[in-house]
């Protein structure tokens, strides 16, 4: 019988190894799997390449992982946010590298990676510095840039409800990158506010089918980044 549920966030992230590529769901605080990220900090994996739209805020969640010195490279579209001070410091001192990717290209690279498409042509960034050094091609009179699909060793995902098969339902704009990251990672680790029995999620309403999910851990009352930051919380 398939049951992807695991008891603790610590067990959920235990296999993440040094040097791994880790996709982290979330756009700003919406969908950020803070409890899984904190478990990853406790776990200690180092030299990670992290894929996320942003670089976290304050000193919790993704920003705390970066602050702990565990991230050698960020792949993101917007590493500048209110209350985001940790990444700029490490970037300027050369301790964390940055691959800047337009947001839609980042999304499509992840989608393509998960769908078995190694590369694609996009009009985004043509004529800008972000197209420098990239292969270009003219198709029906318009120029396009070649971009490569992106895959990962692990994805850390937050959702509202998961069943034992790993079928997922998200919460409002917390969905963002998570469904495509779940597809693009070899091992997708999910924290769900509710873990339910198969059949309790209407198949018509499943957003991420369980085939893309490896592990599910219940986090009943997930913290919100903005509330932690407002309280001045610093992890660990």
């Amino acid at each position, binding site marked *: 019988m398939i049951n992807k549920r695991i008891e603790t966030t610590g067990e959920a992230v235990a296999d993440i190894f040094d040097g791994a590529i880790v996709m982290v769901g979330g*756009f*700003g*605080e*919406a*969908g950020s799997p803070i409890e899984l990220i904190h478990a990853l900090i406790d776990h200690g994996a180092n030299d990670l390449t992290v894929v996320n*739209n942003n670089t976290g805020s304050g000193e919790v969640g993704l920003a705390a992982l970066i602050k702990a010195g565990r991230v050698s490279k960020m792949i993101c*579209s*917007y*590493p*500048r*946010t*209110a209350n985001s001070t940790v*990444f*700029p410091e490490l*970037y*300027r001192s050369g301790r964390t590298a*940055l691959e*800047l*990717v*337009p*947001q*839609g*290209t*980042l*999304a*499509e690279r*992840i*989608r393509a990676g998960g769908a078995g498409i190694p590369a694609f042509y*996009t*009009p*985004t*960034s*043509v*004529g*800008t*510095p*972000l197209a420098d050094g990239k292969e270009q091609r003219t198709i029906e009179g318009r120029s396009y840039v070649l971009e490569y699909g992106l895959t990962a060793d692990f994805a850390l995902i937050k959702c509202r409800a998961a069943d034992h098969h790993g079928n997922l339902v*998200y*919460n*409002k*704009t*917390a*969905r*963002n*990158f*998570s*469904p*495509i990251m779940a597809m693009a990672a070899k091992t997708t680790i999910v924290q769900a506010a509710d873990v339910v029995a198969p059949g309790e999620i209407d198949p018509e309403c499943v*957003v991420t089918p369980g085939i893309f999910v490896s592990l599910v851990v219940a986090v009943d009352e997930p913290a*919100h*980044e*903005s*509330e932690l930051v407002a309280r001045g919380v610093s992890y660990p």
Partner: protein
Amino acid sequence: MTEKATTSGANRIGLTRDEMARRAALDIPDGAYVNLGIGIPEQVAGYVPEGREVIYHTENGLLGMGPSPGLGEGEPELINAGKRRVTALAGASFFHHADSFAMIRGGHIDLCVLGALQVSKHGDLANWSTGAPDAIPAVGGAMDLVAGVRTIYVITQHCTRAGEPKLVESCTYPLTGPAVVDRIYTDLAVIDVIPEGFQLVELAPGVEFSYVAERTGAELIPIRQESLGGEE
């Protein structure tokens, strides 16, 4: 340039930020799917004339975005691209990022309103980086929006705080996209980008043509006589 544009205070010439948003809102057509950038563009939604139904898209996965829920209200997981709390109207939908940018890049969004650092007379837009060596580069979804959305409007002050023109012959800042801007709303004028360059569409109340032309870094083409008084 004889004098610098006054950007604040009692001597102010031209439109306020709110008035610029209000002016741009007049041109948002009924039934349009619209993406509004962060800053002054966000304010456009509040001024769309009554009787027009416009569906707002935010690239972080919501169509049917409603107004801000008010200070201290709303939910941390219902936000816009500026990461501020918003509401979802009846008929709204949520979707993931690849679908959201398929809407953008695939030409399904009718209109986008963005801010600008510079716009060239060819419609090149620079709005993501000043190219300063110590700046953290951040692009977000701007390059995808200008590459994919059919009509691009820009709202911007006519000049920088230092009084330098933001409408220029060619951009000195890194581009967001080449030849993408259709129309520019500034505190001094509404200007279209046409193959010949910057075409004045209308002047803000009390503003003279010469005043705008002096503050524009490329030729400003006067309003053609036959179109005078045509639209209001």
